[in-house]
């Protein structure tokens, strides 16, 4: 069983936000109205921030200042706090280490959005709407079954959504391998943000395989994880700048 993980090299990241928008079009995250965006209700599963987020925060004196930029998908924690608070098992960790979200079961209690220390869970405050002809570009991919709705499937108002590491791409890659009657290889699948990364800063793969790129990079002296001390054991590993 692969254990999926991502490595983001902040030395190569140029904060272009290609990941944010690639994710939007791959996963049908709905555009929100400008006034909602101003309230911080924009839905971007992968978001990019300038640090410090608050520009009035003390960060040293001009000219000895340096802004840092952080791109942040779901950490797909090994010990995810979000699934423990879900009263209906709408969110769960599967046996390949992906923290998944089933829109069909979600009751919109938003416990998970509070439990997640990384703020990667987004609530649909309104019925998602694509104005006029914009809905033409929706990705038709989805994972569907009895009591199951996952992936880019268009959500309804009142459910929580989050980064899936493009789970539908994993399904597609597996289906492809099956159709070609061969074994699936872990390097046949990457999420949309990894594919589009302009600085080639993102790496994706199987942490179980000691020779995979992510395994090797995770041992780099530059490697760190976000909020390591809270015990979530994130599977998104950053490499620091410089």
């Amino acid at each position, binding site marked *: 069983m692969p254990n999926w993980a991502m490595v983001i090299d902040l030395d190569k990241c140029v904060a272009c936000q290609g990941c944010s928008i690639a994710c939007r079009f791959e996963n049908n995250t709905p555009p929100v109205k400008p006034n909602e965006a101003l309230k911080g209700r924009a839905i971007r599963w992968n978001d990019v921030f300038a640090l410090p987020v608050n520009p009035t925060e003390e960060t040293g004196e001009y000219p000895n200042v340096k802004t840092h930029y952080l791109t942040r998908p779901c950490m797909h924690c090994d010990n995810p706090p979000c699934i423990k608070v879900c009263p209906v098992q709408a969110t769960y960790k599967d046996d390949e280490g992906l923290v998944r979200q089933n829109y069909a079961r979600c009751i919109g209690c938003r416990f998970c959005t509070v439990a997640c220390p990384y703020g990667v869970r987004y609530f649909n405050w309104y019925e998602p709407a694509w104005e006029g002809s914009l809905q033409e570009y929706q990705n038709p991919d989805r994972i569907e079954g009895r009591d199951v709705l996952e992936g880019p499937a268009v959500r309804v108002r009142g459910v929580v959504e989050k980064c899936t590491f493009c789970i539908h791409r994993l399904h597609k890659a597996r289906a492809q391998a099956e159709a070609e009657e061969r074994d699936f290889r872990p390097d046949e699948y990457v999420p949309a943000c990894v594919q589009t990364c*302009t600085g080639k800063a993102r790496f994706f793969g199987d942490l179980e395989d000691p020779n995979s790129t992510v395994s090797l990079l995770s041992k780099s002296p530059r490697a760190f994880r976000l909020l390591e001390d809270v015990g979530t054991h994130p599977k998104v590993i950053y490499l620091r700048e410089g």
Partner: protein
Amino acid sequence: MSSPLTRREFLRLTAATVGSAAVIGTLQTLLAPQPTYASAGVLQTGAQETIVPGVCLLCPSGCGILTRVADGRAVKLEGNPMHPINLGALCPKGQAAPELLYNPDRLTGPMRRVGERGSGEWESISWDEVVEIVAQRLSDLRTTGHPERAVLMWGEARGQLPSFFNRFMRAVGSPNVVSRESLNVAAARLAMYLTQGIYDLPAYDLENTNYVLAFGASLLEAGPVPQRIVSGYSFMRRGRSTRGKVVVIDPRQGVSGAKADEWIPIVPGTDAALALSMANVIIRAGLVDSSFVNNYSFGYEDFPDESATTLIQGFKNFVLKNYEPARVAEITGVPATTISRLAGEFAGNRPAVAILPGKGGLLNGTIGGVYAAMAVHCLNALVGSIDAPGGVMTQRYPEERPWFSLPADPIAERGCRAERVDGAGTRFPVAQHAYQAVADRILDGYPVELLLLYDANPVYETPGGTRFIEAFQQVPLVVSFSSFLDESAQHADLVLPQPTFLERHEDHFIEGLGYPGVGLRQPVIHPRHDTLSIGDFLLKVAAAMGGTVANGFPWKTYREVLRYRLRDVGTDWETLKELGVWMTPGYRFARRGSEKWVNEVVGRDRRYAPRDGYFDFYSRELKCILDNLDPERLAALGLAEAGDAASLPHYEPTPYAGDEDEYPFVLNVITLMSLGPVSAAANMPSLQEISGMTVGETWGSWLEMNPEAAKKLGLHDQDEVWVESHFGRVKVKMRLVTALRPDVVNLPYNQGHTAIGRWAKNRGVNGLALLDPASEPVTGLASFTNTRAKVYRA
């Protein structure tokens, strides 16, 4: 249970059996790591899926794209891994392209104005009628002997299109094809032309360089080819065994400065002094590539004048005499020790490369900007980085099948000899194009009877652009080719909707890697609206005009033109369509002094100075141009250095519009990675949403100011303020940015539209409205960076 009990299972069993059984038992079920329905979902996807290659056009990079078309709808773009500019990557603009294609505010068919100009009253009209009107107008102009009164202004046209425009207008008989370059890249192009003798942007061999010195280039966000630079940068930083160092010189840190190893906040407009001071250090320290400067350059040492009686001061002695670091520190605000250290690092860590300013830095827009770019390029020459690994490369283009020569036509030949409408080459002696000056010249009385605007929105995108509305009043027929009803189209007589870059055939040369290559656009879906690309349209017009014009354009469609011109590109049309790109990879550096060096690398485009393969530290080309002017004109140009020093790169103090005491800030209009340079991008909601990432803003404009400066004015973060210059004022939210010089304020570009569509309109402010509308007298560049502003609470 056959396996031995683990501690956790033991605890769980204990809890379930011994504890308050019911409650904890339920809880434990809920805490189970995996629900039973985990594999119940089945993948659903489009019934019919295809992938169509193409080339993006939301910035000048020209990244290769692969569009996923599911059941007839374009749903997702990916980078084309075969395309060397982006290597499979794609930035947010390209990713958001479906919002352009399916934008509800696109023009759906050709329209003719019925009310007053700008009244917004239109009726639809058929393409045949439009072709008839334009053809008739052009024929009339030819009959009356004034074909030069037809003018074509274009914004972003790539591949064959500029050459096609030139040919069409030449056949008609007009020299008036005006490109937008005077708004952005012309300063760097002119610097290349005046030193190296190549009128083009340099390509940078970032993959092999050890040290990058970027002068106001905004290289990772808004350079001339941002994605090419990002690809090279990423490899230089972490793709090879040694990590190259990057130093960014810019009054604003921005993303480029934040990602660099060092950010040097320089007094705006003083980059020439800094570069020349570094040259001073490099020369004094003996770190010059002496083989290059002694054998392949002109004007480094003092040289005798034509009469061989007196010595003219060369670059070396000029720089040694005038640009001591201690003195330059006062001009630039960069400490002398820093100047010396950077110069030593640059010359001591070869191969090193200095990046010329592009749009986005604080260098563009005056003759001082051109001298600065020349000074920067001289740094490349000093360390031997001209056409050398890890240095600067000369861009090559694929072999095109030549156009067959136009039939002889005395009317056209006479028309083409007329003075250009923008004054390039006459009013502006060093200019090739002076886009923003077209309005001034029309208002001054240059007669224009037909104005074609292709991807050109001068009312919005030039400093003080609203004067174009007045200029349009002097033109009987204004035709706009655009996908949206933009600010300029609003004041046109005919509006001709263009297919987006995902719906048309077009080529796009690969630029930024040196070696030749071409990408191909093709329709990914059937065009959504009643559109006709300008190429197809002009072919119809040519046919309708008949005579020599029709004979010069025998093709039925622009696609046929492409097939004609790209025949010798190295592959056949079907392969090009299938791959979306073709190139001849591997840049081959020319040996210094070789035939290739002389013919292709140094001196190729010189018009007056000898094409002798010498890199000009002393610009003989500029000397010839200035000598051709009569002394009165020369004096009126207002150069700080007179005589021979005017042909050497030197520091010219910026002639600011606005007194420093009254207007304490230099106003800089910055281009963002997200919204980019294309007007239509402002009507793409996803790009609007992410546009203010660096300051935590969204959907609108903001003013960036240093906290120290704000404190002095008693302003706080998020205050509403007025930004005022000589030319106007705008109200905007102020955001504090510590990584910014206290004497500079920034406004992001591509907001404050009054047209285009529901998402762009009436949102934020257009900083260009505050800028000096004057054109620089020597180069015809728009004055982007020489306006001062004051800021006060609203």
